[in-house]
């Protein structure tokens, strides 16, 4: 009992002294000062750094080919059907061997909401959403992407979720190119200070 009152008295005295000398304000100032000298977490995109998305990221579409290098798509139009924005246009075409392939395969990325339903619906896994996210354009017409361009778009990579060194290139459109020497980059999350 005696111990307890002493402790509370002590705490009260400390509080009183702290109150007179603004202990709480000084605590706050010390905290912000320590933050002032801690590492910044700003990702310097697009000048110096760039974020590589995770493999699960849903970016620009791409069309896949089989081992023989032929387009996988069988022009079943399921993706066009399921697309909530009706932004996929498929015109089927049958070649001499009786194989169905798309004559026209166009995705209007200006209207696409990157839901990934087309990827889920495809029965032959011919279409997927990759990790590319820099494809801004001056006119929405330029965002209609045709079959051959979709075939040439980069596919998925295994790694991702890092910040890598990069440089800004504005020669044609705005592109941030990764620098070769820094393939792996650093994990942005470890730099965050959580106190």
């Amino acid at each position, binding site marked *: 009992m005696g111990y307890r009152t002493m402790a509370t008295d002590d705490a009260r005295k400390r509080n009183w002294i702290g109150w007179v000398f603004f202990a709480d304000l000084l605590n706050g100032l010390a905290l*912000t000062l320590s*933050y002032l*000298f801690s590492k910044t977490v700003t990702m310097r995109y697009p000048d110096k750094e760039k974020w590589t998305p995770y493999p699960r990221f849903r970016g620009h579409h791409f069309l896949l080919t089989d081992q023989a290098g032929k387009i996988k798509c069988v022009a079943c139009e399921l993706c066009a059907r399921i697309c909530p924005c009706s932004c996929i246009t498929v015109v089927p075409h049958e070649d001499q061997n009786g194989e169905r392939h798309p004559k026209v395969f166009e995705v209007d990325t200006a209207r696409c909401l990157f839901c990934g339903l087309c990827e889920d619906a495809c029965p032959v896994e011919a279409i997927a959403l990759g990790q590319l996210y820099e494809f801004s354009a001056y006119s929405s017409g330029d965002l209609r992407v045709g079959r051959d361009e979709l075939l040439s778009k980069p596919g998925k990579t295994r790694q991702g979720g890092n910040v890598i060194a990069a440089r800004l290139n504005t020669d044609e459109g705005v592109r941030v190119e990764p620098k070769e020497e820094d393939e792996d980059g650093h994990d942005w999350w470890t730099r*965050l200070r959580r106190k």
Partner: protein
Amino acid sequence: MELALAVALITAKVVIVTAILLILPIPLTWLERKIAGHIQQRLGPMRVGWHGVLQPVADGLKLLTKEDNIPVEADRRLFKLAPIISLVPPFVVFVAIPFGDSFSLLGAEITLYISDMNVGLLFIFAVAGLEVYGVIFGGWASNSKYALLGSLRCCAQLISYEIPMGFSVIGVVMLAQSMSLLDIVNAQADVWYVVYQPLGFFVFFVAGLAEAQRIPFDLAEAEGELGAGFHTEYSGMRFSFFMISEYVVMVTISVLCVILFFGGWNGFLIPLPPLIWFILKVGFFIYLFMWFRFTFPRYRYDQLMAIGWKVLLPLSLANILLTGLFIV
């Protein structure tokens, strides 16, 4: 001939001081944004010039080219007058502020102040008090709720903090037996007055924060509740006038803190040129203002009034009493 030379000298000094004060907000805004950034683990401006040093210039150009909006319902004459009224007093204050003693150039004695008034301190408080008109006119002439509320708050705040601020320097005047800032600084050659007047300094500093409309007392432009307070309706150059005046007031308060309580250009331990000492000390106070800004939240309006009238005023009166006893 002699008269012409004196007039030329004074004119040159006025022009130099005005130019420095007009340019000063440029590095200060940059510094403030950098400090804000790093306190929040950001980098702050980075893209214009080396580490963004030219960002304020870019912002200034942007403000210059912005459309100059005057609300239809506004009182046009007052609306145009207000930014100028709020800009001029902070500059006029510097007439009475010394930046150092004198030095000789080409055989002539050149003093580092524009004028050494024997009522310098009184002059400073009188002129600085005029700044409130700019804010009141601005808020009133805008004819908008936010602006009016902001200027009402600002008005009440400036008036209630002017009193403890005025009282807090009486201790200094009693110790130095003079109202001339030059004499006050010279009297601190051995011991800075912050040693004798810690209470006075505390009251002066807190009231100074309020006078400069800095967080935690920036109720006049409380972004969260009033849009931008008294300058809500201002844009372009007129808006930048208010900004410049805010920074100049901040410099004024820092300079006054240094002159009245921290020995002005008197050095301490390390022998540096007096002007360098002065600039270092003022810089420290400016940094303190910015550091406070990004640490503390804003006080509520009733808390602001309670601090002013129930805490600072009795403290400043007690300080006068104590100083009187101390001198006797």
